[in-house]
């Protein structure tokens, strides 16, 4: 990440201590994760102890301190998705990509995540692929989706 972008994010939030969570979110949106140098810079400019920024980054589920793959496959594990077979989707991805949820493939193409609820419960089971929602998902459809991403 070029150093300017961290500075720009902080400036947009007027170096507000309250906005620490939002600042980290915006940095992650740009970079895909929270790089160490960015966290250090945030701590410096907001005048917050470095360990506090790390606590916040570790506490909230949506932050990641490791780079993610080119494509992020988010499997919803909400109750409605669970009872409609979300586990099978994780089986499918584990079989296809040989990674567990929370991991990234060695070639850096895919990250698989399991999250608690994406709030599209009526369409369960739901998989979010690079921010796009896919409802009524089946292992078969998911295999097709992964294949189309591999080709792209």
């Amino acid at each position, binding site marked *: 990440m070029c150093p300017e972008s961290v500075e720009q994010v902080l400036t947009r939030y007027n170096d507000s201590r309250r906005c620490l969570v939002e600042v980290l979110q915006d940095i992650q949106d740009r970079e895909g994760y929270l790089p160490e140098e960015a966290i250090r810079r945030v701590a410096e400019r907001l005048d917050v102890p470095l360990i506090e920024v790390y606590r916040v980054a570790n506490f*909230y589920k949506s932050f990641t301190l490791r780079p993610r793959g080119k494509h992020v496959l988010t499997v919803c594990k909400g109750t409605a998705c669970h*009872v409609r077979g979300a586990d099978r989707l994780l089986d499918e991805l584990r*079989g296809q990509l040989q990674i567990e949820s929370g991991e990234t493939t060695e070639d850096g193409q895919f990250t698989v995540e399991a999250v608690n609820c994406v*709030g599209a419960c009526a369409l369960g089971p739901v998989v979010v692929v690079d921010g796009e929602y896919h409802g009524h998902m089946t292992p*078969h459809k998911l295999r097709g989706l992964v294949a189309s991403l591999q080709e792209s």
Partner: protein
Amino acid sequence: MKRINTVEELESRRDTLLQEQDSDTLTVTLCGGTGCRASGADPVMDALQQQLKEKGLQDRVSVQVTGCHGFCEQGPIMVIDPENTLYCQVTENDVPEIVEKTIENGEKVDRLLYRDPVSDEMIEKEADIPFYKAQDRVLLGDNRRLTPGNIDDYIANGGYAALGQVLNRMTPEEVIGEIKNADLRGRGGGGFPAARKWETCRDTPSAHKYVICNADEGDPGAYMDRSILEGNPHAVIEGMIIGAYAVGAQYGYIYVRKEYPLAVSHTEQAVKQAREAGVLGENILGSGFSFDVEIARGAGAFVCGESTALMASVEGKVGEPRPKDVHTVEAGLWNCPTTLNNVETWVNVPHIMNKGANWFASKGNESSKGTKIFALTGQVKNTGLVEVDMGTSLNDIIYKIGGGPHNGARIKAVQTGGPSGGCLPENKFDLPVDFDALTEAGSMVGSGGMVVLDENTCMVDVAKYFLNFLQEESCGKCVPCRVGIGRMLEILTDITEGNGKPEDLDVLEQLAWTISETSLCALGKTAPNPVVSTLMYFREEYEKHIRDHQCSAGVCRNLVEYRIDPDRCTGCGACLKACPHGAVEGEKKQVHTIKQDLCEKCGICKNVCKFDAISVQ
């Protein structure tokens, strides 16, 4: 946008907007909620605009993209007025036919009409569909009429009239009195009377006070707050301004999950418009009262649904709860008096001010007034958001609105209230859904998640699922929650893996009691509910797992084995192709077998087999 300086100017603006509307104009309304968008509403919209343009119809037909209509299962939904024709599961390929037949010639496209799964009847009008008919859509009805974040639309629909009336004619005490008479109870979970919070906050002296809207909605299985904020953000803002006037707050925060990007952007747009229009910010509608709101984005932590944790999170800190010896209405955000209500509570406020406390109190039953939105999901035909009067029975919601079981399997329970709630068996389905009746039965209304479970669901697995969730989401600050939930989960894992002992059930009950009595916050106190309620109503399922090492639903993987029946297998190869673990072997047109050492018992093979050749033992 021109600033509105007085309540009179607001009313004349409304009159002008209404005069510009023509109820005879052909209007195509497309649901643009997250559900319909996920099902492909955006390409439908593009195709519609293009078709209308090509045919030169764009001036004759008005097109509106609204928030969520609630009937997510049937999305993308399109409604054509004034005929009130509803088309479901519309794709972009259907658009030319819709334009030609319905828009140009007033004919119906039969295959897109809703077919009632119970009566198999084709239904033309939106208003006649049983899913909608049995509801009382006070709040969701607005979603269907409004372009989200468009202040003119909101004003034309009666928006900000309640605010005008409050600022012009009512004292803060009178506003609180009205909320008290309406007996509005918090829709976020606990059902605490809103007026009591407001009153204490008002009575606590402080130079700074805050109001907060909780739109974090961390409960898995609930998404009504998302839909309201996406579809009608101005109503939330109006409710908050009225609340701020009543308690004497100058500033407010809408705490919304970052995972709800559409809700965030529509709310940002609405806040900006409200400021420009003069209904938010300095000297609102020339009344001398000033109040502004800011959006604070949550970053994914269930515990932030707890008020003290949420406030820590708004301050940019780790969202850990604190003991509530001093309530947040006295010392909340930055130690100032703070009134926190959730989205659905705030959005009820303008309705109560417009129509009166008596109108609100006339809906519902003795214990709980007004309507409540539920996210009806799981193994039921019609999934989506349903709004009913408080006190409606579970039976009516699941069968009349939900249309009964999804795939013919018998419905055996309903899970309400998310991880803090519980599971109620079929023989409790005549219970009225209100704050007190569900709590007495061992569950709760919670924020309104309602997941229907059928006989293919294992209740021990459901309890384990929630404990797993809660253990991940426990902030770890207090021992009972951090260690206790973990221990309960270990026991449940043993049971589902065939290693349970008869005395485990007593230990679970003891742990449940200790955790609920001694945890620091509501997350911990209510965490054992899913286990306690399933133990209360489905104890025999636990016993069967422990005694016979059997899971009747075939869900607990360590207790089942998948086998292929050689007499039924045709060697089609579907299971072999589908198995993600490479556990199926066999030549084409020869009987296939499952290699048990590789089988992870996910059941994908069984789902794809067209010959019913795979059985769970």
